[in-house]
């Protein structure tokens, strides 16, 4: 088979959006975001990032806690929709220039295709990040950890969780805008040697670049 055309499979790879929760918004503040990017796959004789488009919103519930969610739009092409909702707690805020964030959330996918035997899948995801000041900008790093709930997998050796470390940079744009560039090693603990040809250092996971824009409104 020609694996490049099977990049369609990768369109459903979840947890794919640039990080927006690296420091608290502040009580009562709302920020909207859009993100584009995903794992690099072999396609059309080159390497292309999956154009995973997502939109999200975060709201400052109190000074050290945000709540928010993200909707993943590309799966709509296949009659499926993905979203995650959760909260972000900031145990350390701008202490010696460092902000720590912990973000538990639920990632859920649903299918509204006809004839499917099961319409919902959900996984708990926990993320952690550390961000440092660079003038008005921020540099940040962290990881996502998706835990299988789980239902049937053909691969009995599939790992029980998916780890995805990331590193990124956030530029301040004007008074209320922010631009993010991020590189995530999606599924670093997963041996990616089947079906889709990812850019996978050491045969593990897939590298995924993202750009995102966030706007307080």
């Amino acid at each position, binding site marked *: *088979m*020609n*694996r490049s*055309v*099977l990049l*369609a*499979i*990768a369109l*459903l*790879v*979840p947890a794919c959006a640039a990080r927006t929760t690296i420091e608290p918004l502040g009580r*009562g*503040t709302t920020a*909207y975001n*859009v993100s584009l990017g995903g794992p690099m796959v072999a396609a059309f004789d080159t390497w292309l990032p999956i154009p995973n*488009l997502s*939109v999200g919103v975060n709201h400052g519930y109190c000074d050290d806690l945000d709540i928010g969610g993200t909707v993943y*739009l*590309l799966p*709509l*092409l*296949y*009659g*499926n929709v993905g979203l995650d909702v959760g909260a972000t707690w900031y145990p350390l805020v701008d202490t010696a220039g460092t902000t720590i964030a912990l973000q538990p959330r639920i990632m859920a*996918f649903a*299918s509204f*295709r006809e*004839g*499917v*035997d*099961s319409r919902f*899948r959900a*996984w708990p995801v926990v993320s952690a990040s550390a961000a440092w000041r660079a003038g008005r900008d921020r540099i940040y790093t962290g990881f996502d950890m998706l835990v*299988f709930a789980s*239902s*049937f*997998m*053909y*691969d*009995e*050796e*599939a*790992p029980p969780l*998916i780890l995805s470390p990331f590193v990124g940079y956030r530029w301040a*744009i*004007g*008074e*209320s*805008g922010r631009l993010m560039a991020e590189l995530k090693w999606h*599924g670093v603990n*997963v041996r*990616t*040697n*089947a*079906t*889709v*040809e990812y850019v996978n250092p050491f045969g593990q996971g897939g590298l995924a670049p993202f750009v995102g*824009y966030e*706007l307080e*409104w």
Partner: protein
Amino acid sequence: MDGARAITVESVMPKSERRLAGLFCAIAALIALVAGGCADMDGFLFNTQTVDRYHPPASIPDSALEQVILDSEGNSLYGYWIEADGAHAGGPHANVTILYCHGNKHSMDEYWDRVEFLRRLGANIFTFDYRGFGLSEGTSSEAGLHADADAALAEVRRRGFADADIVLYGFSLGNVASIHLAADRIEPRALIAEAPFASSTALAQGGMALDFPARWLTEGTYDNAETIRRVRAPLLLLHGEDDDFVRYRDNGRLVYANANEPKSLIVVPGANHTDVPQTMGVDRYLEELRRWMGLQ
């Protein structure tokens, strides 16, 4: 949003940011529009390519080649009947026909090397293009694959071959056709399955490492692992241990585990998806086939 900051959009958002927000809304609307018609992955499974004509290798003499046109649900399918070559050791076995169901790449032209290998067994070979492949008419689908396989089997039977003298051989996607025939249409002399995938779900899960259910991506199930349970014919399954597309451990292994006896498994160390015969050695490959097909 507190009242002090939300008097008007214009007062708090620079023009450039309002443009970005507008772009964001436009992209979201575009996606929503596209989503009105759902795509599926079935089309991606069929890597079809049309051709002006076929290019059989010169090693097969014209006298041994016959181009055949079949009808499958109103679609004209193209195939080749390749007459047994009695010159090879162990041949001729002109009473036996191998119905070869090729993989998903382009057309029969991609698989002539396989035909050349198999011809050394001394049996007849019939191979064909599924609808949408090569010169064959129509649009590919799982149901179409089944119907096209039925038409190919009818052609072999029309030539007077008994079921016990027909060997079904599927490679990769072609296993959907050959396993369907062995399960529901015929008890063949033998079924050879090379690099079969377990199902479309297994392929998708292998690519994502997540437990997405069947039919979230495809209309068909392509469930070889389930269909093989109904097969009673002797099964020889070949799979490359290093197959990085249809991975053995969650595909060929499951198909084999669900198959009935008699069955035999050859996992070829170092072989990838398309080079099982070459990696195990063509002579040994043919010897295994010869033994399993009873052509000694």
